[in-house]
């Protein structure tokens, strides 16, 4: 009985479809081209076509409502639909192809009431292949290699005992001064290592500064409080501070509970930290790490309790508040440099020098690129144009190693 119904419906659909074909099915698209997407794992075929002549934006209702893309592996009977695109679109990336299989693609324009055009097939079959190396990223690989090797080279040089000059970073004295003031007043120091986890390099830099601050508090005998937003940061901070107190010969003065975790949630953490500030009234506050909206909340609360404040962050958005509300601020890369400077480790100073070489590379590329662009704009020099496209599209772009 069921079968009977189904057959009847099928017959109706087929018949109706055939009628629709003859009446209002759109004309098919043309020039279907299927090519293997370069530089991929071999699972994507880029299909493109020219729009059906009936696909016009100025006709309403539209005569083409979508394009269906079908594919068939050579050797199989049936075409399988792999995706559809809205009218006006003429490309589709089929990312579900199987590597090294030969496919034939066809595109059908579909009109209102699902009336399908005749299929337009791609002229040639396509075989998706996997490349062994992403040629579009060749120059990028070279740049990565250059930067990495310079950093490594300078680390090696620094470790071999050669003195590397790093300019004095203003604001580091501010750290010493602040701890001194807090000790004089007999009040605490508060250190906020930002709200991100230990896998953020700014947090790591902050912990380096913390090691300096805790050395000072251990020497001077001031209490140091470190509220953290991440449990892993808490552990790292505890280990760092403990080591400083041992080094200063005052392990008895180290209190694990002064370095505590509040909450992973940003404002939960800030609420807790602000509460601690107004209750303990520290005389010196340090904010070193990643900060978001809490920067101003912390800095203003610190201001209201009259604390000396020193901040350091590479978060561009939060720098204005620290610059305005704190007594001293380490801006962006200065913060990393300060942390390297304080750690005094040869490797840290070496990597700083490596970064400077990176900046020289930027300046060089900018000067060459801008000169080429200017010359190319002023004269109709072909060589300047070639140089410009080479730098922009190849060295800094994704057009491959050579033109």
């Amino acid at each position: 009985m069921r079968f009977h119904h189904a057959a009847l419906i099928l017959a109706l659909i087929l018949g109706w479809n055939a009628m629709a074909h003859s009446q209002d099915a759109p004309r098919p698209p043309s020039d279907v081209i299927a090519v293997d997407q370069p530089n991929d794992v071999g699972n994507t075929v880029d299909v493109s076509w020219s729009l059906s002549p009936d696909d016009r934006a100025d006709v309403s209702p539209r005569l083409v409502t979508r394009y269906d893309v079908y594919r068939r592996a050579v050797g199989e009977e049936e075409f399988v639909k792999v995706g559809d695109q809205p009218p006006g679109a003429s490309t589709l990336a089929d990312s579900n192809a199987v590597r090294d299989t030969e496919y034939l693609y066809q595109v059908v324009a579909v009109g209102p009431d699902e009336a399908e055009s005749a299929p337009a097939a791609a002229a040639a079959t396509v075989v998706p292949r996997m490349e062994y190396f992403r040629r579009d990223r060749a120059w990028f690989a070279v740049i990565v290699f250059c930067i990495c090797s310079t950093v490594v080279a300078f680390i090696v040089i620094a470790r071999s005992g050669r003195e590397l000059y790093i300019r004095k970073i203003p604001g580091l004295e501010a750290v010493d001064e602040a701890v001194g003031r807090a000790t004089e007043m007999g009040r605490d120091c508060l250190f906020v290592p930002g709200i991100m986890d230990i896998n953020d390099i700014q947090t790591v830099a902050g912990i380096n500064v913390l090691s300096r601050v805790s050395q000072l508090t251990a020497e001077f005998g001031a209490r140091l409080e470190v509220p953290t937003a991440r449990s892993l940061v808490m552990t790292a901070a505890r280990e760092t501070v403990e080591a400083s107190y041992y080094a200063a010969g005052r392990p008895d003065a180290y209190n694990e509970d002064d370095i505590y975790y509040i909450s992973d949630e940003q404002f939960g953490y800030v609420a807790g930290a602000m509460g601690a500030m107004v209750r303990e009234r520290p005389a010196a506050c340090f904010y070193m790490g990643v900060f978001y909206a809490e920067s101003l909340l912390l800095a203003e609360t610190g201001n209201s309790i009259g604390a000396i404040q020193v901040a350091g962050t590479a978060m561009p958005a939060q720098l204005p508040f620290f610059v305005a509300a704190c007594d001293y601020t380490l801006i962006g890369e200065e913060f990393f440099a300060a942390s390297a400077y304080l750690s005094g480790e040869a490797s840290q100073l070496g990597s700083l020098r490596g970064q400077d070489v990176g900046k020289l590379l930027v300046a060089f590329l900018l000067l060459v690129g801008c000169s080429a662009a200017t010359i190319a704009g002023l004269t109709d020099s072909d060589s300047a144009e070639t140089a410009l496209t080479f730098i922009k599209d190849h060295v800094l772009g994704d057009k491959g190693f050579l033109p």
Partner: protein
Amino acid sequence: MKPQTLGWTLLMVVGGAFLIGRAVLTGAGTVYVQDVEIEVEIEDEAEEEAQVVTLQRVEQVPPNARSEPGVRLSYVHTFGLWVAAACTLGIFSFLWGDNPLYKVTEAIFVGSSAAYAMVVAFWSELVQNLCGNLLPDLMRETLIPGLKVEEPNLWYLVPLVMAIMLLWRLMPSGGWISRWPLAFFIGATAGFRMMGYLEADFTQQISNTIMPLIVTGADGSFQFWASLKNMTIVGSVLVCLTYFFFSVEHTGPVGWAARLGIWVLMITFGASFGYTVMGRIALLAGRLEFLFDDWLWLIDPLGRRLDM
């Protein structure tokens, strides 16, 4: 001290009276809901007839629909609204100074936010991706009926083991075990961040800055403002980079460039400040709208209480 206490008491009494007045006279702070029933057919392969299941849903409706049939006052939501208002005022009370009300709201906030993140991560990541791949059959029968994974993927034992090692940190001893997953976590971050930053923030930024310093129009005429703009951009980038150059002392020409650099940075920070102010005021406006609209019914910008 005495006049201050008196002042506070007076303020509290007046405020309380106002609230009671609003609530009694206008019904402010009430929430109305409607019960909705959804009938869903389930196809059971064993049964011939499709079974029909009725699902109950409660939908919130705007207050001006309160006299319509089926709409009732929701005690749970009304209570919630007053709790929300109390929380809002509790946090704002910190502006006056630290006080017990703020401390209570702070404690609630810290506790609920930690649990919130944990619950969400549990259902969305641990159940779906970890359990879904390790125990697909069990998950299909219980928590994720729509799961399509067929066979257990034993590779997911690796993150499971690492997860247990990470949680070992909560134990009194043997905390070093957690360093292994931690190392994985940090190594992975270092790896993908290095590539992402170098491509988008280094090479692409250089590429974006390469521009002609002297701009000419289509007819070959000299474009003064466009040229000045391009020169300013390229020059500013270079002087700012000089400020961040650590290998030489900032004296002489380098010192001058660095000084120009810090000025550009300050202009940048000024612009940042202006933009930030804009955002923060909007947040305050959002909160005030909640108090005046949803709670006290003083304003009605969305027309949810027209004809009342």
